[in-house]
């Protein structure tokens, strides 16, 4: 058995513990979102094996671009390949909301944030499995010991978080309705592109490996800031623990 599967299991355990724990803490110890973690698991494989590859093949054939050209392909086609990931993945991640039970959970912006976040994390977990499978098919990697894949562990844990935020943005847009559906979609797709930018620039050999490793952190920090702003904006009054406050002493002139 290729040993990346061992690291994939460790990644899943860490990701669920970390991002599930975060959801549990931030939602005031609610467990109702956790079942959504199952729904997104197959969606990365669906997006990658079916939708993305089909779209790229279809467009390539229509424009008579030969497959397997790599960076030698026309620039517009390369741009399309960059765009196709967020264009396909963002709508796919919210597909579980077609289920009535899942949709019923999204009653306000706070529940939209957490339902979206968990669905995105779920997609990220499935993506980790899919990538582990893809790497295992690659001969040079299949012989490496499991502990050689710590880069996979770090990257996939953070990717789960990023998918969670992007899906939360979209689900909040869907919950608000009207023009916010468009705003939410465009923001999620734009942020996904921003997140992928260092990887794309490295693949196009525009930046060095060292610069890629450094710059990959920037989108995650931006996403974390956006997440924190959304979380504060959608915080419900019942989440505010200050109601249980005990004032022991207060200086008289403070009013």
């Amino acid at each position, binding site marked *: 058995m290729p040993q990346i599967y061992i690291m994939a299991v460790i990644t899943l355990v860490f990701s669920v513990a970390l991002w599930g724990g*975060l959801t549990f803490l931030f939602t005031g110890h609610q467990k109702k979102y956790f079942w959504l973690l199952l729904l997104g698991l197959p969606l990365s494989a669906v997006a990658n094996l079916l939708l993305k590859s089909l779209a790229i093949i279809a467009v390539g054939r229509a424009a008579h671009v030969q497959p397997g050209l790599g960076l030698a392909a026309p620039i517009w086609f390369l741009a399309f390949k960059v765009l196709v990931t967020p264009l396909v993945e963002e709508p796919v991640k919210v597909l579980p909301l077609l289920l009535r039970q899942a949709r019923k959970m999204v009653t306000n912006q706070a529940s939209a944030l957490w339902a979206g976040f968990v669905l995105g994390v779920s997609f990220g977990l499935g993506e980790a499995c899919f990538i582990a499978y893809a790497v295992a098919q690659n001969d040079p990697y299949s012989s490496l*010991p499991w502990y050689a894949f710590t880069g996979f562990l770090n990257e996939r844990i953070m990717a789960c978080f990023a998918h969670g935020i992007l899906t939360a943005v979209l689900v909040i847009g869907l919950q608000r309705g009207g023009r916010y559906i468009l705003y939410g979609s465009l923001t999620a797709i734009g942020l996904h592109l921003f997140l992928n930018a260092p990887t794309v620039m490295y693949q196009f050999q525009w930046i060095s490996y060292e610069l890629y490793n450094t710059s990959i952190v920037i989108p995650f920090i931006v996403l974390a800031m956006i997440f*924190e702003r959304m979380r504060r904006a959608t915080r419900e009054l019942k989440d*505010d*623990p200050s109601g*249980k406050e005990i*004032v*022991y*002493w207060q200086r008289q002139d403070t009013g």
Partner: protein
Amino acid sequence: MNAARVKPTRIFQPRPSYGWAWLILMALIIIAVSIAPAAAMGVSSRNAILTLIICTPIALAFLILAFWFPTMRYELEQDQLTLRYGLVLRYQIPLREIRTVRRRTLSLTIWSTVRFPGIALFTVPYADVGNVKMCATAALNDILLIETDKEKYGLTPADEELFVAALRAQMEG
């Protein structure tokens, strides 16, 4: 004559927690993550060595913090309260500057700090009260929050009633 009135320093311990175990766990995770690439690729790998060089001091810092865990204490003196943790943390709070003393549960943010279940040290941002200088054996629940004109401090004395009574007596006395 005034010297006779100076009260001796009273020392209060924090309430017990397993914060030290979390610090050790973090150190072990960092060590494991940093050693793994070197073990897989060999010490001749530049990236593996770089990872080790970056991660080793961080893991050591966590281990040192865990070692100092029993040194956390609160010293109530004549005109100031001092929060101590090992050699790295020493917050002095002049009693005359204290505006409020209250106990509350604080709201989490995602920003990374020295804050784990059972321990919170240094400046920690909270969603509801902003930045708090923590020297506590809890990160969120039942924090004794001391607010001065300039700063907020978070602590968790084991005997909270006794501590608050002593603090009030010192401030009002």
